[in-house]
């Protein structure tokens, strides 16, 4: 089989030849042609079949003629030079980077362009007089790099990038290296004249390097410890902050009183290692957005019919009640409205979970979020964007609460006991020395607090979870933050949405019930379906044999009812139950069906069934062992029996749930003290995803919109869901083991400390040693379990 030279898809349906190369469609040829003519062939040399087949865009970007919209989108504009950043989800390889950074070769108006690959964005500088924004977008779309422009682009100007951690880490590393270097002479304790003379200088230099480390790099630990104490929680940052301040105060006193060289090396090293852990934990998937609400799903502009009956493009947020709008095929309705004209066939699957598009008639109410499939319709707005039925959901308070604050991590749990133990050891040893040698009290007391500083404990979780986060990501389960893995290990109940989550978006399986159709009937059926645009017709047409297509003598499609067609003596009626009126024996079903009658005699019906994702039985069985499973669907209960078969006994199944019902249901489950995971895919699940302890959104293409959640699971890895649970549980075990390991180092250190022998050298060796061994241990064990559990 040949593959398309441009996009690499197989040329199964048709094979086009151009310039001695094979292509799958005209679109791919067009892109090839543009690149070839402009000497951008290198595109095809960098990677094999790098291209993306361009999509139809006629009229789609007309809103970019509107100056107020352009103004909102531009990052910079001085009347001539303009800068804009686009999110382009289809960026995927080095060829993409290359061609997008060579746009100036395609149009002289484009000055420079720069790709940010992890974020999948391109920042383009162009001259407004030479190329308009609309032409620029059309050029990109023509090349297959269609920018994703949504209502979200309107709100936010460039989000400020927070680089504090990099600065903190850089300063700590810088100071650590210099302090190490300066404290080297004193490690060897050589009693030489020159060292005695210069040691104050060395020491004060070390002090100077440490000051920014304590007051800038480590400031988050102090803030967090303070916050913890204020709300009566002994989190891990309390002993860390205590350790850092004791280290600093003791070392400063040491050099002032000339008692010794101080522990500046340990201090800066400690902060540096802690920050490395923090940085490592912060693996982010820049191109995925976990915070999306309806705004990134909604279009930026829509066609309005003005007072003088002209069509105009207006920003969505300017739409007022009473406006009349035009919605075209595949366009999304951003407001609640009443249908005035046209055949509306609205696909609500993403918004309500209903699997099949529904017909609406003039005067019917349409809800925001529905997608029109079919012809052009005209509607009148009854509620603005922010007030629509769907967007009301986002006013619920769960969308503004931060879940992480509610979560108590393993580290913080252990830190409570740890802090109390350390303080009592310090106190006891202090008392001991108060009796035996008063001069040693201060030294021992501070030494205990120094070695007890739980650097290794604090590193155990970041490195374990950071490693696991990467393992999960490698297997296409993208988590927002690493603490979610710990959360995942505690889940008691898993709640599934049905449409789009358990079922796939494509590939409905269709079965036929009734009297077998004759050859003539089949030909007529295929020929009639071919002429219809209804999604069900198209799905049915796709599975039928298309060898003999007859020219129809008559064909009529009645919106919302069905098709009547005739070929010679044979006539056929295809459509809804009310339209075909089957005999009572063909019992009514709430499953989606298309009925067929021929020459006025009932033949049978095609039943559309949702196709479930691969491995669903396995996943249910594995998870059912120790978790409660619940189905929470917005669709009707036609699939109840089928689901009951594969689910563990006594599992709850709820249907016809509205978005708010789902949210309340999760809340109710949680009130029983259970940890709930919600797995959904659409906007209707958004509330439940936000309310649950861990919200996971399933996506067939992780680049397209998915509602706000804690994790995005690629649909192709759904079958591994149980394995992810297993690995997260293993992760908490690894953290516990590393606690034991680091505790072992703490005991050794404490031995030195209470006996009064903790010299700076010992501290400087012990601290990095314990940290590094914990890092090694967690890295090796997580790799091992990742291979065992996920890659079997």
């Amino acid at each position, binding site marked *: 089989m040949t593959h398309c030279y441009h996009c690499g898809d197989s040329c199964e349906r048709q094979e086009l030849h151009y310039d001695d190369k094979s292509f799958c469609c005209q679109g791919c040829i067009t892109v090839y042609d543009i690149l070839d*003519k402009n000497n951008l062939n290198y595109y095809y040399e960098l990677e094999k079949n790098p291209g993306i087949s361009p999509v139809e865009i006629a009229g789609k970007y007309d809103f970019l003629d509107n100056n107020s919209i352009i103004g909102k989108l531009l990052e910079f504009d001085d009347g001539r030079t303009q800068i804009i950043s686009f999110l382009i989800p289809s960026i995927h390889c080095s060829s993409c980077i290359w061609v997008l950074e060579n746009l100036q070769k395609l149009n002289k108006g484009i000055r420079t362009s720069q790709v940010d690959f992890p974020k999948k964005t391109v920042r383009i500088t162009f001259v407004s007089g030479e190329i308009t924004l609309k032409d620029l977008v059309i050029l990109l779309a023509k090349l297959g790099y269609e920018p994703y422009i949504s209502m979200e682009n309107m709100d936010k100007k460039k989000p400020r990038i927070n680089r504090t951690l990099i600065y903190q880490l850089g300063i700590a590393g810088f100071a650590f*290296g210099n302090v190490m270097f300066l404290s080297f002479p004193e490690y060897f304790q050589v009693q030489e004249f020159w060292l005695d003379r210069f040691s104050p200088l060395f020491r004060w230099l070390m002090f100077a390097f440490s000051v920014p480390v304590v007051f800038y790099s480590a400031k988050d630990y102090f803030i967090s410890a303070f916050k913890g104490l204020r709300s009566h929680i002994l989190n891990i940052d309390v002993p860390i902050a205590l350790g850092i301040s004791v280290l600093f105060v003791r070392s400063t006193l040491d050099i002032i009183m000339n008692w010794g060289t101080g522990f500046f090396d340990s201090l800066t090293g400690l902060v540096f290692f802690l920050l490395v852990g923090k940085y490592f934990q912060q693996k982010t998937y820049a191109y995925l957005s976990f915070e999306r609400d309806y705004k990134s799903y909604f279009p930026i502009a829509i066609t309005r019919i003005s007072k003088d009956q002209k069509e105009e493009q207006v920003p969505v947020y300017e739409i007022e009640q009473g406006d009349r709008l035009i919605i075209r095929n595949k366009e999304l309705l951003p407001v609640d409205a009443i249908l005035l004209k046209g055949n509306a066939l609205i696909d609500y699957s993403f918004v309500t979970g209903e699997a099949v598009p529904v017909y609406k008639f003039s005067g019917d109410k349409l809800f925001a979020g529905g997608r029109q499939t079919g012809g052009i319709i005209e509607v009148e707005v009854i509620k603005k964007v922010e007030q629509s039925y769907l967007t009301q959901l986002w006013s619920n308070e769960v969308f503004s609460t931060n879940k992480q604050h509610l979560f108590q991590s393993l580290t913080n749990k252990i830190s409570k006991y740890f802090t109390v133990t350390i303080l009592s050891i310090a106190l006891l040893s202090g008392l001991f020395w108060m009796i035996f040698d008063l001069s040693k009290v201060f030294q021992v007391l501070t030494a205990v607090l120094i070695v007890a500083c739980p650097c290794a404990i604090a590193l155990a979780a970041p490195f374990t979870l950071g490693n696991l986060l990467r393992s999960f990501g490698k297997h296409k389960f993208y988590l927002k933050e690493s603490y979610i893995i710990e959360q995942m290990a505690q889940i008691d109940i898993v709640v599934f949405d049905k449409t789009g989550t358990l079922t796939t978006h494509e590939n409905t399986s269709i079965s036929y019930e009734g009297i077998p159709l004759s050859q003539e009937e089949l030909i007529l059926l295929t020929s009639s379906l071919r002429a219809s645009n209804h999604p069900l017709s198209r799905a049915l047409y796709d599975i039928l044999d298309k060898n003999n297509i007859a020219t129809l003598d008559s064909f009529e499609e009645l919106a919302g009812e069905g098709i009547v067609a005739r070929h010679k003596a044979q006539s056929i009626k295809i459509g809804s139950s009310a339209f075909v009126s089957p005999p009572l024996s063909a019992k009514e079903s709430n499953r989606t069906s298309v009925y067929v009658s021929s020459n006025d005699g009932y033949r049978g019906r095609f039943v559309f069934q949702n196709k479930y994702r691969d491995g669903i039985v396995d996943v249910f069985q594995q998870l059912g062992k120790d978790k409660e499973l619940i189905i929470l669907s917005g669709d009707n209960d036609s699939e109840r029996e089928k689901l009951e078969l594969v689910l563990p006994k006594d599992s709850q199944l709820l249907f016809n749930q509205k978005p708010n019902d789902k949210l309340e249901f999760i809340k109710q489950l949680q009130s029983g003290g259970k940890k709930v995971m919600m797995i959904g895919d659409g906007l209707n699940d958004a509330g439940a995803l936000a309310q649950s302890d861990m919200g996971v959104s399933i996506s067939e293409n992780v680049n397209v919109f998915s509602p706000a959640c804690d994790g995005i699971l690629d649909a192709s890895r759904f079958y591994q869901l149980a394995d992810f649970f297993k690995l997260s549980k293993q992760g908490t075990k690894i953290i516990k083991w590393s606690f034991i390991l680091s505790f072992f180092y703490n005991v050794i250190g404490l031995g030195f400390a209470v006996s009064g022998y903790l010299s700076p050298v010992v501290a400087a060796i012990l601290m990095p040693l314990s940290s590094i061994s914990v890092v090694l241990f967690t890295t090796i064990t997580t790799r091992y379990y990742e291979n065992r559990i996920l890659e079997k």
Partner: protein
Amino acid sequence: MTIIYLLLTISVLVAVFFFIAFVISVRDGQYDDTYTPSIRMLFEDELIEEVSSEKPKTKNDNQ
């Protein structure tokens, strides 16, 4: 051994110089995208120039 004053000053100055370079690079956004530049540096611009001399040049016909 007073040379140590000079040596220390130089070493600290060198360290501070690199530190300032680091801060400037972070501020310029060099750490915002640590992936794309690693690919960009592998592109060979010369290659296209050679090809362009062989083929007739058509100007912006994609508008």
